């Protein structure tokens, strides 16, 4: 057992046991560990997003993985085991461990990672289920998770809907880029892609657009069919703002229900570790922030939960594109 695992935050008082809805395995090593999840700087405003990510390929220590496994609920463990093969099972497990430990950080360590419960909204988007018996505190935390085969990211926002999507820059599609774009994107986006003659550059722009659109749809939380990609355009403007606008032809009929495609959404697109594009989207209802609006504040940490956290935003690892 590494001694580093028993680090306590300096000056931390012994923590009361958090309210737990169901008894968990007693005497588990992870029991005292959540005290060692340091509190991050708080989310300053609704326009700030924090992203925590881990790389499954780097996490192979069995006792570490067992420790993460212990954080999961029985149904999460069952779902992880239903995945096809040990790699996907490990990723699924790590994804839940990442979510739980990340959320715990934003509760001043008052809520044990194992204590969180979740529900799904009517479209299937996961949300925190807070106990309504008044015995526990609540935080207006919103989260969203994104997976690639080599990185799992968890985005956190305060009091506002959030969507995040991460994709490998070099991800090769089986289908041809333009046929994918024609089937799923708007005409203006197809035109934009068609004008790019270099196929690598075209593929990168496709991935950028894809992550932006995915982040938006995930923030909306209505599922892929709730906001079909060809009903809205994401334009990467020359002043580096991302504008989302309804695709003119498709949204003119009043019955097609494009009302939810409101334009109160704020995006950030960044290159991550020179291998990934990451797009984050939050709802922003603040009025009067047209031109020169304050960009979305983004902080990114790479984490090995309970072991090491590294702030990577503000370094070369995170290159803002917008």
């Amino acid at each position: 057992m590494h001694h580093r695992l028993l680090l306590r935050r300096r000056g931390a008082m012994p923590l009361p046991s958090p309210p737990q809805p169901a008894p968990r395995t007693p005497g588990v090593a992870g029991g005292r560990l959540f005290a060692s999840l340091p509190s991050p700087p708080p989310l300053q405003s609704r326009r700030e997003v924090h992203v925590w990510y881990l790389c499954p390929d780097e996490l192979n220590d069995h006792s570490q993985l067992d420790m993460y496994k212990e954080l999961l609920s029985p149904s999460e463990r069952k779902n992880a085991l239903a995945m096809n093969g040990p790699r996907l099972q490990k990723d699924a497990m790590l994804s839940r461990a990442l979510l739980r430990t990340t959320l715990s950080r934003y509760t001043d360590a008052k809520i044990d990672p194992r204590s969180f419960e979740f529900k799904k909204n009517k479209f299937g988007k996961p949300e925190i289920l807070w106990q309504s018996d008044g015995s526990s505190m609540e935080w207006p935390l919103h989260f969203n998770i994104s997976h690639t085969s080599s990185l799992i990211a968890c985005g956190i926002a305060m009091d506002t809907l959030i969507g995040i999507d991460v994709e490998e820059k070099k991800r090769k599609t089986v289908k041809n880029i333009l046929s994918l774009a024609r089937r799923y994107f708007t005409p203006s986006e197809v035109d934009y892609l068609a004008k790019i003659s270099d196929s690598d550059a075209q593929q990168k722009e496709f991935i950028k657009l894809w992550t932006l659109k995915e982040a938006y749809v995930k923030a909306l939380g209505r599922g892929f069919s709730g906001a079909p990609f060809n009903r809205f355009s994401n334009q990467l403007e020359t002043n580096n703002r991302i504008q989302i606008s309804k695709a003119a032809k498709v949204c003119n009929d009043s019955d097609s229900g494009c009302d939810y495609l409101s334009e109160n959404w704020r995006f950030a697109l960044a290159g991550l570790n020179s291998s990934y594009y990451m797009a984050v989207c939050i709802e922003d209802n603040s009025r009067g922030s047209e031109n020169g609006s304050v960009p979305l504040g983004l902080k990114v940490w790479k984490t090995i939960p309970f072991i090491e956290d590294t702030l990577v935003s503000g370094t070369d690892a995170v290159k803002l594109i917008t």
Partner: protein
Amino acid sequence: MAAIAGSATASFARPVKAVNVSPVSFAGLRKDNVSFRLQPVPQRFTVVCAAKKETVDRVCDIVKKQLVLPEGTEVSGASKFTDLGADSLDTVEIVMGLEEAFKITVEESSAQSIATVEDAAELIDNLVSAK
């Protein structure tokens, strides 16, 4: 007398399953006081035919091609796309592959309700027969 909509007996040429069926109590039913209604089912039930094996097999092939699965991975009707590791980009590519292979168009709302290979195959059979 009671009318029952439920799993078919062997007298049907193809297996039929009913979805959204409310539980029916079988207490007190005997052979002579039960009638099977062979009329069109009420609108609140959807009777979906199990997909053709040939369609399921073709869907499995397309899925395997898209996901580049490890050798020996079993893909069958019951396989869930998410359990196979398909993300959203994989899913749209699979849907496009199915559209091309079967010459159909899949609406986003239908695509979203597909969880397994069997679901996809059923949808395809319905779309193909509706052409």
